[in-house]
């Protein structure tokens, strides 16, 4: 597989690096300490076309490709994991399902504003009782004369405190499955922040990505127009799973970026830090640690880029799935991020444990990538399921 960047991709990478260094990195510590959503950064990214990178121009996107999107998440995450996931959740979990499943009217209404960054997007699947067991949904949507009436709650919703548009998964009835058992009929909806009966609950206090807005969504007799059903009735679970396939590439890119950022910080530090009269970079333990981390990061990188390219082939019209590639990329990249950041803290020693250096933040940020948008165990279920088909 060829990962040579096109001239445009290389230029985008250069721009992302300059932007991350000048605009994102200086805020990263503050955003973490104050658990503050970096709204000003989102506005700046929106101006540069970073909130709709791989969607065609006809729907308001920038007309670039999936790898260029993945590199945006990667480069921002190198300096700030919070900023990386804002782009990822917005793009992969909200704009993408509307682009892939929306009616022409839905696309025309939502995509231009999402791609321009005027509206921020989020995705509500997880519930207090439905995490890995995504079928365990309790939220209901009942069709009435006036529209769909939604009741229930969602938790751990990324971007929710600032999002304008939400993709909400809800039960619309019961069906008899192929084995003759009763099962929940699940559908997807587009909900707007201003819809009556919709509210956003308290902000979660998290271990990492503390600037990312994670809240509960509450729907109490939330009435939305009939044309907000996204995709076909009863196909919401498949829509959610396909959406997460794309989302996992974004989270894999975030994990990759966090690992790369931690290694960059560590390489600079070990050249400066002296013990026993020598920079610690002169010790073979340090060198072996750096070498192994670099090799593991590149292994993860190739998986992430390969998954991005497979998704691009779907964008270009190929009828293939990329669930397994996305699961492999996320499994390996997230584990690499956790492993690499932990080893980097060790190389930093006591200083690495203080909040004066960014490395402990990176270690805290890394952990979530093994959990959200499908835990590592879920990724292994996807991969094994394909192997044993």
């Amino acid at each position, binding site marked *: 597989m060829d990962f040579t960047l096109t001239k*445009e991709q290389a*230029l985008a990478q250069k*721009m992302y690096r300059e*932007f991350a260094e000048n605009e994102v990195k200086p805020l990263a510590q503050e955003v973490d300490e104050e658990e503050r959503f970096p709204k000003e950064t989102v506005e700046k990214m929106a101006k*540069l076309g970073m909130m709709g*990178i791989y969607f065609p121009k006809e729907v308001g996107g*920038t007309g*670039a490709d999936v790898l260029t999107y993945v590199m945006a998440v990667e480069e921002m995450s190198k300096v700030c994991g919070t900023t990386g996931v804002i782009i990822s959740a917005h793009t992969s979990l909200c704009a993408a399902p509307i682009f892939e499943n929306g009616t022409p009217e839905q696309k025309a209404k939502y995509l231009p504003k999402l791609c321009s960054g005027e509206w921020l997007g989020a995705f509500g699947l997880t519930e207090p009782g439905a995490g890995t067991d995504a079928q365990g949904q309790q939220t209901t949507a009942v069709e009435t004369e006036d529209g769909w009436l939604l009741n229930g709650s969602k938790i751990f919703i990324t971007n929710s405190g600032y999002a304008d548009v939400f993709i909400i998964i809800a039960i619309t009835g019961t069906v008899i499955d192929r084995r003759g058992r009763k099962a929940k009929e699940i559908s997807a909806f587009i909900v707007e922040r201003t819809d009556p009966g919709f509210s956003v609950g308290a902000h979660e206090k998290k271990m990492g990505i503390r600037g990312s807005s994670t809240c509960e969504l509450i729907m109490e007799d939330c009435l939305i127009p009939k044309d907000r059903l996204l995709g076909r009735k009863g196909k919401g679970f498949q829509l959610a799973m396909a959406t997460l396939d794309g989302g996992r590439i974004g989270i894999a890119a975030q994990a990759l970026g966090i690992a790369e950022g931690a290694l960059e910080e560590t390489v600079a530090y070990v050249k400066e830090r002296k013990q026993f009269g020598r920079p610690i970079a002169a010790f073979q333990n340090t060198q072996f640690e750096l070498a192994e981390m670099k090799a593991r990061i590149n292994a993860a990188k190739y998986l992430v880029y390969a998954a991005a390219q497979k998704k691009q082939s779907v964008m270009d019209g190929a009828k293939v799935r990329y669930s397994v590639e996305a699961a492999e990329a996320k499994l390996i990249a997230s584990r690499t991020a956790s492993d690499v950041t932990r080893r980097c803290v060790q190389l930093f020693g006591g200083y690495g444990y203080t909040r004066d250096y960014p490395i402990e933040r990176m270690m805290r940020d890394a952990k979530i990538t093994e959990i959200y948008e499908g835990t590592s165990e879920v990724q292994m279920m996807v991969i094994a399921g394909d192997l044993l088909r």
Partner: protein
Amino acid sequence: MKAIVCVKQVPDTSGKVAVKADGTLDRASMATITNPDDLSALEAALRLKDATGCEVDVVTMGPPPAEGMLRECIARGADKAYLISGREFGGSDTFATSQIIAAGINKIGVEADDVIFCGRQAIDGDTAQVGPQIAEKLGLPQVSYVAEIQKDGNDLVVKRMLEDGFMMVKVQTPCLLTCIKELNEPRYMSVGGIFECYDNEKHPMTILDYPALKDDPLIEVDTIGLKGSPTNVFKSFTPPQKGAGMMLTSDAPAAELAGILAKKHII
């Protein structure tokens, strides 16, 4: 109305500086960037475009790889690019360079209300001569060290920064302005701009070589290239780093300073 912006690709002086045996810079072995003051000039032109919808053309003289820098200018928002490039132009000093760039600008064509933007100076030569020389050769009014620009009918009112103050100058268009970094904060390339910047139909890249410019009266064998350059480079070198200064923070800094000087047997 249009804006013409002169830009230069310069060695990235934050990296290593390489010097050839003849004393000139070994540009090929150094990473390059767009000259920082020129980015401010481009930003000023792009703001004029935001306000008036005018066209922004970028022009540079340099070897073929300078095309990459021009593409980046397009990715920031410029419309058209002109690359002045040819062996005949090699070795030009500021005098010869301004002859050639002025001829290039003549080729693009300067109309009644056009504005030419240059950076104050390039970080490699630091002469601040090329912009003003271009204006002289084109017979245009010029304002250097521009820190603010306002449009006033057909004129521009600009703030000119001097060492000990500033000057407000009203200037007729067409004119040439040399811009300083403090003028603005250059915008980034946009993703949309990047994915359009290699589209030659939308953003034509014109190569102006010697045959394209040779009929301009400014271009003579003895006005361009090494032969047309009255400057001889004696030596290029990286100046030695100065030691860090010392801030006196006590309540009685004069006494503290006198004490330090006495300790060093200076007084």
